[in-house]
């Protein structure tokens, strides 16, 4: 019996038909962080709550990873099957810029300011046949 398991608990709501990114918000200064953490990088207080950061954001900066990274990179790809992927920081409604992989689409080249949607898809299959699920972003399809 195979299942879809989040690459790490708490990064995004899962399982879900409409996953959202999860982070933490400081109850003292209001700053948000991704991933969530018990302490605040801004003010140093230790009073944070898990919050949704949303599912649609705006691209703040980007690049394209053109060669296959060394380990700890762990996908099902081989040097032959590797395909370049985008990486960028996406401004989320929750008030933080989140780094994520960005799906490349020749019809919608990456540009600063473009809207992106969160997607949760398999990154790799583990030894037991489970799909390890990871978040990424893709250009908004109108």
């Amino acid at each position, binding site marked *: 019996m195979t299942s879809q398991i989040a*690459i*790490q608990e708490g*990064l995004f709501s899962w399982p879900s038909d409409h996953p959202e990114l999860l*982070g933490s918000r400081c109850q003292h200064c209001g*700053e*948000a*962080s*991704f*991933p969530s953490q018990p302490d605040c*990088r*801004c003010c140093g207080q230790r009073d944070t709550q898990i919050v949704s950061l949303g599912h649609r954001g705006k691209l*703040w*900066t*980007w*690049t*394209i*990873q*053109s*060669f296959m*990274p*060394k*380990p*700890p*990179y*762990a*996908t099902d790809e081989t040097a032959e099957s590797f395909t370049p*992927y985008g*990486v*960028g*920081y996406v*401004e989320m409604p929750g*008030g*933080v*810029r*989140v*780094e*994520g*992989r960005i799906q490349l689409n020749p019809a919608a080249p990456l540009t*600063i300011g473009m809207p992106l949607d969160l997607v949760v898809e398999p*990154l790799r299959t583990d030894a037991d046949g489970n799909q390890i699920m*990871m978040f990424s972003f893709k250009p908004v399809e109108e």
Partner: protein
Amino acid sequence: MDVAIIGIGLHPFGRSPELTGQQQGANAVRAALADAGLQWKDMQFAYGGSQDGGNADALVNELGLTGLQFTNIWNGCATGGSSLHAAYTAIKSGEYDMGVVVGFDKHPRGAFNPKPSDWGLDNWYGESGMMLTTQFFAMKTQRYMHDHGITNDALIRVAEKAFYNGSLTSTAWRREALSYEQIANSQMVSDPLRKYMFCSPAEGGAALILCNADIARRYTRKPVLLKAAAVRTRHYGSFEVFSPSQPMQVADAPTVTASKAAFELAGIGPQEVDVLQLQDTDSGTEVIHMAENGFCEHGEQEQLLRDGATRIDGAMPVNTDGGCLANGEPVGASGLRQVHEICVQLRGEGGNRQVPGSPKVGYTHVYGAPGISGVNILTV
């Protein structure tokens, strides 16, 4: 009281397949001792560091078990800057009169592959392919170009200058000048940065002998004074490598605060600097670091580079030995290689790459993960 640099030494950067990292570090120390006319037993203290070359304090096995205080320093790409800062304060405090700083490294080929847990990050960050320094530098450059009107032309000109300067430097790794077209057409690695716009991990060693400036003239006719050494880490809101998220509010990079602190300590301003070393992990960061260190306004780099201002014969020569782009980056040694080159220039020993007009004030800047900068100001 001032701190003086009285001896400088390098083990050539690049590849030394027959030598360990520690042997390259020991060679650099021997060269620095010979330059100062001193012996290892004269050293009262040592600070040193390496990423992949093993412990620095193991160099005593090669140099001699003299019982000196030897402290290992590890601060990412800013390891050299932190070692030098430690030596500066050791002498400044009056505890010691004379000592050595040494950095060396021997990295495997290819890009670095850091372990997420070493950086306080969870495994998913590395497994999903986001833990590459090249991505960060590309993304910082991409945003900077967007905000400040910098074009590919500036990125190409930085690399063109670096490899030209490297061709004039006997200890450099990349000693072949590259044309504008070769750089512009080289393989895209991480948009907008191409193959010849990135430095590569390498090997090498660098060492400096420092002493109380009051006794420096016993050892050299031309002591170089270390007028300021400052190291700073990131602020909340500065855009840094290995960050799964960034706050919306933007703060100054640690480079800005380290630079300001160093200028204040030295009591001089950027306009008085005659020769510079700026961290050039890639072309984009050299462009950004010109402004972050106070040598121009954001956006002015495009014209400055077109005018050749940062060339050896320009108004603000940057990375006269080819910088990281031409020397590669043995992480432990890189920051001290920068100081070595400034000493060469201030001593007037640059030969065919000597900055004209007898430079009197030099500046070095190193930046590394996860958001740390070290700045030094040197004078003769």
